[in-house]
Every structure is written in structure tokens, then in C-alpha cells.
């Protein structure tokens, strides 16, 4: 049994315009946990995160954070009220801002976010390039920047979407280490990943999503036993 969930969705439905993408997503995560959302392309994992952030045309059902209902909260108030940091799939580095401006951009959403110093200690590469325009960075640097950016805000609940996509193995490895460290520091993390090998050792629990529904839920400890099932879902 787990502690009272920090974030819980139940019956979450979401639409992009006319198209109904999520058909009732139920997930929960307790403070300090790390869960992953797995699934094939187009299953609706990204949309789940976006729906939590209010970044869809319409959403229904329930999203509670620390016990508070968020489904009717205006989209720009979700991050501050929920203390959430969202790292989008496409990284969302701003081309017209340099690295440091990118870092400083998101307003604080919680107490004791990391200072610039701490961030540069965690990602020394960023310090080297801090005056370079955002999109001139290499893919890996952009990815680091996207994560660092939300750590600064004091968000303790992180929604991370495909942070390893298109990255060289060397950087994937480094990111894995960074995530481990964050988890150790008590951050609560929702991870969307294609790269199961990356996600498996990190997660407390996996949710498998297909066609906008959670079709399975696998506890971290059971992964080895459930490998066949997983392979089938993901057809790896």
C-alpha cells in the first residue's frame, strides 16, 4: 500500500479540438516516488502530461494534487498552485533567449528552488554555454537546460516527457544519473519514456497506456517477472 497520493488522476479525458485522445486515465503517485508512463507511439502519454498541465483543448474527470481538485483551474495557474515543473517532449527551449535567460524565465512555483550555482554544479556544461542562444545548443544541452529550468522554480513535482529522445547514449547515461539524484533528494517524478532500458531501473511503478487508457500497471519490483507482458505491449 502506498501513502496518500501527491498527484492522482481519475477518469481523465482529454480532447484536441474534435479528437478525443484520452479516455479515462487513472494514475497516482506518492511523494518521492518516480513512475513512468509507457506505451507505443501515439498512445497518449504526452497527452496525459499535457492534460495535467491544462494544455489540451478540453479535459474532464479529476486531477487532484495534494488533495486539491485541479480540473477547473485556469491553465496558467496550475503550475504555481500545484508546484509543478513540466518538461515538454520537444524541450521548448526559447530560440530568442540565451541559456541564462531561458533558465531564469519560469517564475517560481515553490520554496527553495535550486540556485544558479547549484544548477551549474549539477550541469557543468550549461555554465560553459550560458550566453549562447537557446537553440544553438546541442540536443543534449537543450535537454539539460529544459530540466534545469524547472528545477530552478522550486517545483517538487516534475513531469518529464521523453527526455532521452534523440540523445547520444553518453548523454542518456548522464541524465539517468541526474534523475537518480533528484529522486534521492525527494522530488516526485512522472517520466514518459520510450526507452524502457533507461526507465526500468529508476521507476517505482510503470503504467502502460494504450489508446488513451491505462491498460496495465506494473510495480517496479515486478518488472523482471512481467517482461513478457511488457514486450507484448510495446512490441519491442
Amino acid at each position: 500500500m502506498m501513502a496518500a497520493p501527491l498527484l492522482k488522476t481519475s477518469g481523465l479525458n482529454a480532447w484536441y479540438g474534435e479528437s478525443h485522445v484520452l479516455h479515462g486515465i487513472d494514475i497516482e503517485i506518492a511523494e518521492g516516488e518516480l513512475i513512468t508512463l509507457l506505451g507505443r507511439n501515439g498512445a497518449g502519454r504526452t497527452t496525459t502530461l499535457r492534460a495535467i498541465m491544462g494544455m489540451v483543448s478540453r479535459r474532464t474527470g479529476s486531477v487532484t494534487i495534494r488533495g486539491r481538485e485541479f480540473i477547473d483551474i485556469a491553465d496558467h495557474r496550475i503550475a504555481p498552485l500545484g508546484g509543478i515543473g513540466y518538461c515538454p517532449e520537444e524541450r521548448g527551449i526559447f530560440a530568442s533567449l540565451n541559456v541564462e535567460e531561458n533558465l531564469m524565465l519560469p517564475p517560481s512555483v515553490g520554496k527553495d528552488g535550486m540556485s544558479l550555482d547549484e544548477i551549474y554544479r549539477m550541469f557543468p556544461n550549461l555554465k560553459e554555454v550560458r550566453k549562447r542562444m537557446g537553440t544553438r545548443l546541442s540536443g543534449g544541452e537543450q535537454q539539460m537546460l529544459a530540466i534545469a529550468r524547472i528545477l530552478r522554480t522550486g517545483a517538487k513535482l516534475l513531469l518529464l516527457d521523453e527526455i532521452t529522445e534523440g540523445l547520444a547514449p553518453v548523454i542518456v547515461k548522464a541524465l539517468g544519473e541526474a534523475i537518480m539524484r533528484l529522486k534521492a533528494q525527494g522530488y516526485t517524478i512522472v517520466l514518459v519514456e520510450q526507452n524502457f532500458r533507461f526507465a526500468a531501473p529508476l521507476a517505482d511503478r510503470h503504467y502502460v497506456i494504450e489508446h488513451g487508457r491505462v491498460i496495465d500497471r506494473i510495480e517496479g519490483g515486478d518488472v523482471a517477472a512481467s517482461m513478457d507482458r511488457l514486450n507484448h505491449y510495446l512490441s519491442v
Partner: protein
Amino acid sequence: MTKPASSHQTLDQAGEFAESVPHEKLARSRAAQAVLWVLLIAAVLFAPAVLYPVFVMQLLCFALFACAFNLLIGFTGLLSFGHAAFFGGAAYICGHVVKVWGLPPLLGILGGGVFAAALGYVVGSLAIRRQGIYFAMITLALAQIVYFLALQLPFTGGENGLQGIPRGTLFGLDLNSPLPMYYFVAAIFLAGFLIIYRTIHSPFGQVLQAIRENEPRARSLGYNVDRFKLIAFVLSASLAGVAGSTKAIVFQFASLTDAHWQMSGEVILMTLIGGMGTIFGPVVGSVVIITLQHYLADIGSWVQVVIGAIFIVSVLLFRRGIVGELARMLKISSV
């Protein structure tokens, strides 16, 4: 792959091409087009029987102008905000050729067209170096230079304009009488319209569409994109010039109004209202606008307010224009 957060409708998607649609739609579109062609030709032939011929001639000139403009915006994806330079500039040249050199009007119109083509070559070469909104601004600035030349050069008559251009004769017919003049203008319009239609449905037009849809890809397939754009630009400019020259003969007048940037705005408006990237849209658009201007003339400068409001509403709600929206409702192709 990362998906765009929201689907973007670009200018390119305002129109669509016949052969990119399923076959039954294609058949229906063919039928609709045939009907439209018949209607258009009938209207052009018989309009002067019911309407004031000068008014219809004015319509035809602007319709040709808008069709020429549409070749760029609708089928090449280039917004020129300086097309008045070709329309007005050619009008002066035509006027000069006919009035001062004493050549027949047909040669005057030809001269205007050739001049506009040359001007189009210069403006086009400069402008196609940039895209989108920058392209629009550059054409606007270059057209301003043309405007100031029209104001300053002695032969244009400055603010007075070039007045009293004789209509002369065509193959012995006196163009001062309304009907010969009318059918002369109608012939020019239909010829211009045909050229545009053919261009759009030519191998060249096919490449233009490819460029509009994905320029880097067209380039990577070995198409000299700039050259295609430039040819389309020159073609459009010269037809705009023919339209302006013809108008100069009809009204026996070439003036700054025709070269002013507001004229560039007006032709955009006509095209937008009728439907960018549709074959018949610009004709419909110019009929709507000119008719409004004509019949609302009594309310004076309120016309401008009405037209501005129409502009706003069509940008907000009917970006496909009248013909585009109709085609969508009837599920036929508008090209």
C-alpha cells in the same frame, strides 16, 4: 517525432488542388467548373446589355488585376503588397504610348504589360530574397519608390495625372463608342484569365504548388526555386500591368490612385474576399468590392468603413473567401 502543439493553417492551405482529392469529388468539381466557365463567359458577353458598360469594363480590369495578383498569393504563396506599382505604372506607360507617341491602344496596352514585366523582374529579383512578411514589406517599399517616381517624373503629370488619353481605334473600330470598347476589354480580360488558368494547370504550376508547400524540399529535388518564383512574379506583374493599361484606356486617365499603396491593399482585399488560391475567387471578389464602391458611393467615405469591416470579417471568419467557402460547403474543388 515531436508533434506540433497545434495544427497550423498556413496560407498554403487556404486552397487545394483538384488532383489531391478523391475521384468523385473530382468529377463533381469538373462539372461545377464547366458551369462556372459558361456563366463567366455569358456574363462577360451580355453584361453591357443590362449594366453601365464603363462600370463593367472597370470590373473586368480589376478582376484581371486580382486574378494576376492571385497567381502570386494563391498559387505561389507570395504576398506582394506592391502590386499597384505594376497596375499604375503600366497605366502611365500605356497612356504615354497612346497619347504622346500616338500609337494605337492595343500597342499601348502591350507596352504597359511589357513595362510591368520589366518592373516585375526588378522588384521580384530584389524581393524574393526574403520570405513571408518581409517579402510583403519589401514589395511595399519598392512600390513606394515607383509611386514617388510617378509623382516626380514629368511625363506622368504629377498630381494631375495623365489626362485625356485617346481611346483611338482598333482594327478600324472606333473605341469611343461603348460597345466596341467593351468587347475589346472583354477580350483582354478573357485572354488574361485563360493565361492564368493555364499557368496554374501547367507543369510549371505544379512545381509552384510544390514550392509553396515545402520550399526546402523542392530545392532539394533540384528545382531552382528562386527562378520559379521570379517567373511567377513577372507573369503576375505583367498581367497586372495589362489590367492597369486597359483601365487607363477605358477611363482615358492614368493617375496616382492606381499606383498608390491603397490600391495594393484593395487588390488583396478583392482576392481575399473572393478566395485566395481559387480560380474564380478574385473575379467574384472584385465584383463584390467594385459594386460596393459603386453603389455605396452616395454614403461617401462610409464606403471605406464598410469595406474595412468586410476585410476584418473575412480575415476572421472566411479566410477561404466566398468561392473557397462555397467550394468547401459543396465539397468541390475550387481550383
